[in-house]
């Protein structure tokens, strides 16, 4: 039963665990940046930007993640764009998750009364200042819980990368299954590892929620 602790498998597990964390953390960062930009586009007064944001979200939120991985892994090289499997995985996950982040943010923005933005504009603030200083800080509180769900899904989605040449937790399973270990026992340990990650992300967001709740 104790597969990670047999035959020197422990370092393999640790490598997979860190691989998943690295992939997820980087993707989370880029997804958040991308999501903020897309959300800003979607609420901007410029029609071209709004259309761009809407199109982006519609396309990438509705594309299966595996298909995204196929695209970055097999299509990009044909366009003479050569990037590492890891970079490709970060790109696929960020683009995919970014569209969800955008929609969560936009929902949050919609919870802030229109008058707040009007007051900001009437004081001479531009679009960026209105969004960054007045609207987003107030949207944040409404956004934390659903954002937590998005970022708990991300590490679990990152398992797809294991099928595209990136070494992470799920690749550990492939390696060890090939060595003849019992697949159910393996899954137990992998599930445990994913649980640790999801639980930690969840805990961070709960803490954020508690902290922002005190403000008013």
């Amino acid at each position, binding site marked *: 039963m104790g597969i990670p602790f047999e035959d020197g498998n422990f370092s393999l597990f640790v490598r997979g665990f860190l691989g998943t964390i690295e992939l997820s953390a980087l993707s989370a960062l880029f997804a958040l940046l991308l999501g903020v930009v897309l959300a800003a586009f979607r609420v901007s007064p410029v029609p071209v930007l709004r259309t761009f944001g809407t199109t982006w979200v519609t396309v990438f939120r509705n594309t299966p993640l595996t298909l995204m991985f196929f695209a970055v892994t097999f299509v990009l090289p044909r366009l003479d764009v050569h990037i590492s499997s890891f970079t490709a995985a970060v790109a696929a996950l960020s683009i995919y998750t970014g569209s969800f982040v955008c929609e969560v943010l936009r929902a949050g923005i919609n919870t802030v009364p229109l008058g707040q933005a*009007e*007051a900001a504009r*009437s004081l*001479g*603030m531009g679009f960026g200042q209105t969004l960054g200083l007045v609207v987003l800080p107030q949207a944040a509180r409404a956004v934390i819980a659903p954002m937590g769900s998005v970022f708990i899904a991300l590490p679990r989605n990152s398992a797809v990368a294991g099928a595209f040449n990136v070494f992470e937790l799920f690749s550990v399973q492939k390696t060890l299954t090939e060595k003849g270990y019992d697949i159910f026992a393996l899954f137990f340990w992998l599930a445990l590892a994913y649980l640790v990650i999801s639980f930690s992300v969840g805990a961070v967001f709960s803490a954020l929620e508690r902290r922002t709740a005190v403000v008013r």
Partner: protein
Amino acid sequence: MTENSADPSVPEKGRGTPLVSLRGVNKHFGALHVLQDIDLDIAQGEVVVLIGPSGSGKSTLCRTINRLETIDSGTIEVDGRPLPAEGRELARLRAQVGMVFQSFNLFAHKTVLQNVVLAQVKVGRVPRAEAEKTARELLERVGVGAQADKFPAQLSGGQQQRVAIARALAMDPKVMLFDEPTSALDPEMVNEVLEVMRSLAAKGMTMVVVTHEMGFARSAANRVLFMADGRIVEQNTPEAFFTAPRSDRAKDFLSKILHH
């Protein structure tokens, strides 16, 4: 409608170079023609009160002056310059046009002091220490100095509205727009806000006030504009307007609000 210079009932003050000038302004909300050929000049230091039945377009007119509402045709000039399109130029102009809303719209995530400081620092590029000094003076002036470190939700409506006035004044505006500033207040708090507005008017601030407070219109206005169905139906000094309204619409309106 009525040209100020040709209208003997308009006070002397209304005849200089106008600070705010609207010419042939039209606006539609879908099929509703909410502003119809509005011509209006507001002089430096003038207090103009807009009254009229709900849906007459008075709030919309007020909001077009800092382009919170866009117009379909016509021109609006503030201090001799036409309102620019959305962008940096417009933002700069808005900083010079103070606005007070019916629902206060104080920034809920900022303290009272921060509410008054924020735009000074971020828009006016005033050093923070100086901005805080200005903010505290203004809060003192509108009588909420003791509430500086509270959040808006901890204040009464009247206090919040006075903070909102201080927040607008902090940008040192050339003209102040008041869009039904007392309509969301409990009756006992109306006067504290009107007092602040009266003292502003007495200090020579140019003001456009949409209100249902006829007492304020009588005592503080230089000119009363009566609007109905998207038009300025009648304009006059408050004394003349309230004692001898000329149009039937105005007579009807006044009879409904003054005798009940």
